[in-house]
């Protein structure tokens, strides 16, 4: 079988090579595309057609009734069709996963390509709804409409975002043409609109309106090149003008009627498009002309009509019988195949030919290009990517491999990747799949988007194999497959929930890694009314954060709570708690949380208390009450007692706390204590009133502080009463009184107190406390030393700086070692002399 040479489809405009390859023979039976509105997906995407109702039709040529939208592959195989029941559309556009249809009444729908029965419908609302939509233009991530109120509205994304009005265009009538500059190609980074009005062009975005001050308009067509750097403008008078997109440089001007091969009677251009960034293509009916710079052109005929679909690296021409692809011949292909090329790659390719024919010229050729062998090999690999015919792909890769053999060092990764990629591309280009994506488009759009495209066509197996072949995660494919399986299962009722669930789980475990999320699939199952299946699937979900929201939606409240607790994520538990609090009556809410029935719920009950303590006091009180939690109720009252600034309130809270403690059989002590606290505050307030002339404040003091303050105030009777009422132990009272008297510097009183009876705390505290005051009172302190334990006296005297007495005390006990120590440590001067004297008196 002979394969036509790659150059057989080449042609030139001036010196530039273009090629036009037939990609597919169309399988459809559409006699004339001009009757239809046509949309073509990017990167070899599908085709949607719909009868254009604004055109007058011959009766009987088309089915009467509601218009239908038909979808086909690029090879013309039907994918699906569905009825359009809204007002006539102004735009059909393919997003990677959906078909967007905008009606002239301001409603738009996004049809899920994998399940065209389901769509999301949104309305533009406002002016667009009232005055209607005149035109709409889409870009990668959104679209812009021009409405009957002569305003431009931008819609970002495909999720029903609120339309944003661009700055007023100040138009008084619809523009003769306009286009959208997508955010990634505009200078501002936002969507811009170019409008032809009068003789000029206006640039519009959400903030500004800039007049470009052009005087050659009006223009029938404004076309932005794929890379966003050039504009092709076609004037009403039939002039094709190419300028840089900032209007700074004029690049080419062509009088359309002067283009060779045209007879000048074509009339206005029906459709125009960029072919890559290199040429502009014009169409009248089935007459297609590729215009190069300077007006040289190539002409093709597709009667009766054709549709142009621009791509980043060329242009698809779809006609009733064929799908062709036109592009400027890529550089690597040019290097290898251009007649007379002396590029090393061409020589390498030639050398392979010689080698296969066992001709010695092979060796000669290799020698000749030895220094440039690496670039020759690379170019051959690159060129292989640009050929659609596997025969030439293989041959080019073989040439690369052949050249590689002569190199010492070569990194084979490019070679391997290219082989891998071509395998993928050839698979999807197969006519039954019908995705004529080129290597450039594949690189620009990524493997993931190709896989997305495949699954949106429900080609799951192919998508899965490609994912695995390229080492990508299969989650996306598996998820989509499972969703599709569930929605299809709805129709064939034979399959039980168990069977479907098992099939999905088996597939996931076989093909996927652990990471596939079951929650999303469960959600789809639930949305299709299969609750049991949803629950089953959800059980396989490992991530509680995914599980719980759906469970709540499914009203599986308790399961949701249990799963949230098991996750250990407290915020998830709060999510459930707050949801339940919102949706349930208080009774039902507490009933669910009854952890005496289900002890596993305790963590949630605890969290509820933590939240309610700060966020919802009443809830907390109700909860404690219905759950008979007396201790907690009482502690809450204690806390609120502490937080209230008013006496009455604090007393009330304390009383309430005492009461609650009292209702608990093991809290008698606490009940007594709170009761005491209540009593204490009451007494403090009474005394404050009684002693109001002295302006004393007692409220809030502890029993100890209270007695101390009363002693300081000299109201000893009252102090004694508190002491008696609170049964303050002797030891404690002595300490309080000691401190009070010391603070008053009431030395006589202190002496009397010390003598009143034998001190229960001993007399050392008298010494040490007086010394610890600031300033210390060593002389007063020393008076108590004789009442202390004889063993300690010496050291205590030292602390009072009474060295002589210290020595005396040691002497009394006959403690020579102590005396010696005193002699060594006593500061020189008087102290030293005192100590010496005592020592001397001993030795006497």
């Amino acid at each position: 079988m002979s394969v036509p040479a790659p150059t057989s489809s080449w042609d030139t405009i001036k010196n530039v090579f273009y090629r036009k390859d037939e990609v597919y023979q169309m399988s459809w039976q559409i006699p004339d595309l001009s009757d239809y509105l046509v949309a073509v997906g990017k990167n070899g995407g599908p085709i949607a057609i719909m009868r254009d109702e604004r055109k007058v039709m011959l009766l009987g040529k088309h089915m009467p009734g509601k218009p239908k939208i038909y979808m086909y592959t690029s090879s013309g195989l039907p994918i699906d069709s569905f009825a359009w029941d809204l007002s006539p559309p102004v735009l059909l556009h393919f997003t990677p996963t959906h078909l967007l249809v905008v009606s002239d009444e301001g409603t738009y729908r996004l049809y899920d390509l994998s399940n065209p029965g389901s769509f999301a419908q949104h309305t533009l609302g406002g002016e667009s709804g009232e005055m209607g939509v005149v035109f709409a233009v889409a870009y990668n991530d959104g679209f812009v409409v021009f409405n009957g109120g002569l305003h431009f509205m931008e819609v970002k994304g495909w999720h029903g975002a609120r339309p944003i009005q661009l700055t007023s265009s100040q138009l008084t009538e619809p523009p003769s043409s306009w286009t959208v500059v997508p955010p990634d190609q505009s200078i501002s980074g936002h969507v811009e609109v170019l409008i032809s009005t009068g003789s000029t062009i206006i640039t519009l975005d959400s903030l500004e309106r800039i007049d470009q001050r052009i005087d050659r308009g009006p223009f029938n067509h404004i076309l932005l090149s794929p890379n966003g750097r050039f504009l092709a403008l076609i004037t009403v008078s039939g002039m094709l003008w190419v300028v840089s997109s900032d209007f700074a440089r004029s690049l080419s001007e062509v009088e359309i009627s002067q283009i060779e091969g045209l007879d000048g009677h074509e009339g206005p251009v029906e459709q125009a498009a960029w072919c890559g960034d290199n040429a502009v293509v014009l169409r009248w009916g089935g007459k297609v002309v590729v215009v190069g710079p300077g007006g040289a052109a190539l002409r093709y005929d597709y009667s009766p009509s054709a549709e142009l679909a621009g791509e980043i690296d060329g242009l698809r021409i779809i006609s009733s019988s064929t799908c062709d692809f036109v592009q400027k011949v890529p550089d690597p292909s040019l290097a290898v195949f251009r007649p007379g090329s002396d590029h090393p790659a061409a020589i390498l390719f030639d050398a392979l030919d010689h080698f296969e024919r066992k001709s010695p010229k092979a060796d000669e050729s290799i020698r000749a290009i030895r220094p440039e062998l690496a670039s020759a090999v690379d170019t051959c690999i690159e060129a292989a990517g640009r050929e659609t015919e596997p025969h030439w792909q293989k041959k080019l890769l073989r040439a690369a491999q052949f050249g590689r053999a002569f190199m010492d060092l070569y990194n084979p990764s490019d070679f391997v990747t290219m082989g891998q990629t071509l395998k993928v591309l050839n698979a999807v280009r197969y006519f039954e799949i019908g995705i004529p994506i080129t290597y450039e488009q594949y690189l620009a759009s990524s493997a993931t988007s190709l896989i997305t495209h495949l699954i949106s066509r429900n080609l799951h197996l192919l998508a899965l194999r490609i994912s695995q072949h390229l080492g990508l995660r299969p989650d996306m494919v598996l998820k989509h497959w499972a969703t599709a399986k569930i929605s299809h299962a709805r129709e064939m009722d034979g399959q039980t929930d168990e069977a479907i669930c098992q099939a999905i789980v088996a597939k996931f475990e076989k093909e996927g890694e652990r990471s596939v999320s079951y929650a999303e699939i469960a959600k789809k199952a639930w949305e299709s009314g299969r609750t049991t299946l949803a629950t089953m699937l959800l059980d396989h979900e490992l991530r509680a954060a995914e599980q719980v929201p759906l469970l709540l939606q499914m009203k599986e409240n308790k399961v949701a709570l249990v799963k949230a607790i098991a996750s250990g994520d407290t915020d998830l538990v709060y999510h459930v708690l707050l949801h339940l609090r919102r949706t349930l009556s208080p009774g039902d809410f507490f009933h669910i949380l009854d952890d005496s029935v289900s002890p596993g719920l305790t963590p949630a009950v605890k969290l509820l208390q933590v939240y309610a303590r700060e966020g919802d006091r009443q809830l907390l009180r109700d909860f404690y009450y219905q759950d008979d939690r007396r201790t907690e109720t009482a502690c809450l009252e204690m806390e609120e007692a502490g937080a209230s600034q008013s006496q009455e309130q604090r007393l009330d809270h304390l009383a309430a706390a005492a009461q609650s403690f009292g209702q608990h059989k093991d809290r008698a002590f606490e009940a007594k204590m709170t009761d005491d606290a209540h009593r204490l505050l009451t007494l403090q307030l009474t005394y404050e009133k009684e002693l109001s002339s002295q302006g004393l404040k007692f409220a809030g003091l502890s029993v100890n502080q209270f007695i101390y303050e009363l002693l300081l105030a000299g109201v000893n009777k009252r102090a004694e009463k508190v002491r008696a009422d609170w049964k303050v132990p002797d030891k404690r009272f002595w300490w309080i009184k000691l401190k009070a008297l010391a603070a008053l510097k009431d030395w006589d009183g202190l002496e009397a107190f010390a003598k009143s009876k034998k001190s229960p705390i001993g007399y050392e505290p008298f010494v040490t406390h007086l010394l610890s005051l600031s300033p210390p009172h060593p002389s007063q302190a020393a008076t108590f030393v004789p009442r202390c334990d004889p063993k300690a006296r010496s050291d205590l005297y030292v602390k009072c700086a009474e060295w002589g007495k210290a020595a005396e005390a040691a002497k009394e006990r006959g403690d020579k070692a102590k005396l010696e120590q005193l002699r060594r440590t006593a500061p020189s001067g008087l102290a030293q002399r005192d100590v010496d004297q005592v020592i001397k008196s001993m030795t006497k």
Partner: protein
Amino acid sequence: MSSPVVRTSTPGAGPSKAPTYSNAPPAPSTSGDSESTAPRPVEKGLETGIFRELMRTTLVETLNEIPGAKTLILDPDVAGPLGLVTDIALLKHQAVDKIFWFEAGPLNVATRNVVWLCRPKIKHIRIIAGMRDYQYTADGLVFTLLLVPRVTELCRKVLEDEGVAGDVNVLPFKMEFIPLEDDLLSLEMSDTARDVYLNGDDTPLYYSSLALMTFQRAFGLFPKIYGKGDAAKRLTNLLERHHSSGDSLYADLEVSDQVDGLIIVDRSVDWVTPMCTQLTYEGMLDEYVGIKNAHIEVDTGLLDGQAAENQAAGSMKKRKHHLNGSKDTLLVDLRDQNFAVIGSRLSKIARRLEGDYGGAKNLKSVSEMKSFVGKLGGLHSEQQSLRLHTGLTEMIMPITRTDEFNRVLEAQQNLLAGYDPTAQMTIIEDLMYQESAWATVLRLAILMSLTSGGIKPKPLEAFKRDFLQVYGYHHLPLLINLQNLGLLVKSPPATSLPFANLRKPLRLVVDDVDDGAPNDISYVYSGYAPLSIRLVQCIAQKNAVASPANVDIAAELDGRGKKELPKAHPLLGWKGFEDVLGAIPGATVDVRQRAPGVSGRAEVRFEQDQNQIVTTVVFFLGGCTYTEIAALRWMAKQTRGRRFLIATTGIINGTNLLESLGEEKPVELTR
């Protein structure tokens, strides 16, 4: 007794059991002693600085997402930790104009953006919601709320309830481990123990699990996880759950080849240790001066030296100082020493510095002079840090000489040793009657309850009654909370209090430890080995549990010996201590982690290379004390080939732990 007065008299002899702290004349030493100028080669561990970088990057990226000049309003809880990783210059660079503290009431901002940075607490959200009263959004102010470490449903709910959800842009600000030192990571969360053990709110546990997952993303999966306690078990479950959840963040984790395991210390397993008064230098600073977010508040005079002269009485200004071992070599030397030896260490250092400065007289050649001048900068900073540490020691030394301090210590050591609990109750009572700080008294009472299996009902009730009368009835909920936690209970206790049964098998009380040249971790409490760290030793240093370390090693640590340290044994689990574990309530954790699809034995790698240094991460759930850190650092120096990286939810001491368990003090009555 709280005011640090430097007294010149010699202290009285303390009780027999307790160690005494005297400023005995330092042992004679040669001025050429250069123990800190020639530091021992340190076994380089994990590069924990990446966590600092991570946070800085997060901060920069988060602030950059908010265009234009901004006013930053900080939650003090977040500001402290944030200050450890960033500085004002970095913030200014991100167009932060002014910084304020969180406060209710009107704002005073000159920028379009107002950015709040706080933990997701309801009270903070309410403050922000309060801003609607001032109509700021109408003035075109843009509000952003950064929540640490993530945005919670709860906060969303409060914002919604307050009707301001639409006016505030809420974003997460991930703040996880903060490297306080090269070997110390902290989440700097406060009140973790209260949340987890008292309130049953496992939020800190969940955040800990996320932080440990981030750690594993940086250094690989922990090959093994050990721990004791129910919360440790819950944390381990969370870690395993994250790992197996299929979250792409954790899907491709390999088993670490630098870290050989994670040991989780669950605070609820050892409440005894934090109740004890810490006796290391840094521990004492925390107990008596207070260390917050690695910062200490000191008189400015101690920091710059000049103010010392013109200190008008009482007008001393306080300034925050960052205690940082990487900048302060003296601190590294001192922080983990028992306070009893700090005085002599300091004078040694002082002499050395004097000698080094004095070296100027003996310079013979220009080149000698040049090298001396080169050293001057280092000398100067050492001198500064010497002044600081001497000053701090002077502040603490008098405290250690008070009767109160020594009685507390006496009771503490006796209780730990199980010696005559009734007599200790008398000491506790005495301290209470003289109105020592409430936390001091309560810590001892808790220690008594924990170490002697509860307190007999009668004395306990009498204690509580006295306690409430002395310190105020508002402490009642605290006492109930302590009962619920099993910290202060009547005997016989409802749940087992195993301390008495652990004393012997874990050698918790050690009589003959030398504070200056320790041969056992018990030096950090002058004779009590922290239970928590003994449990770590059960896994990582088994022979140290049964007998003290070889004294030669201590000599070697002083840089004199040349003997090689013994090689650390691999982590082999709890083997040999099953009985001990059985006595402690709570689950036991012993888990091996594997990368998915790998079935081989991961630990083999560690045993092959004799010289490889592995890191064992010890994570304290519920906080750790400085003594525990000191003990782990000491342990790391006893063997070759293993380094400990200490990670914690926060740094605690007994007093702030108790404060977090109680209610706030009652407000003033005004009506």
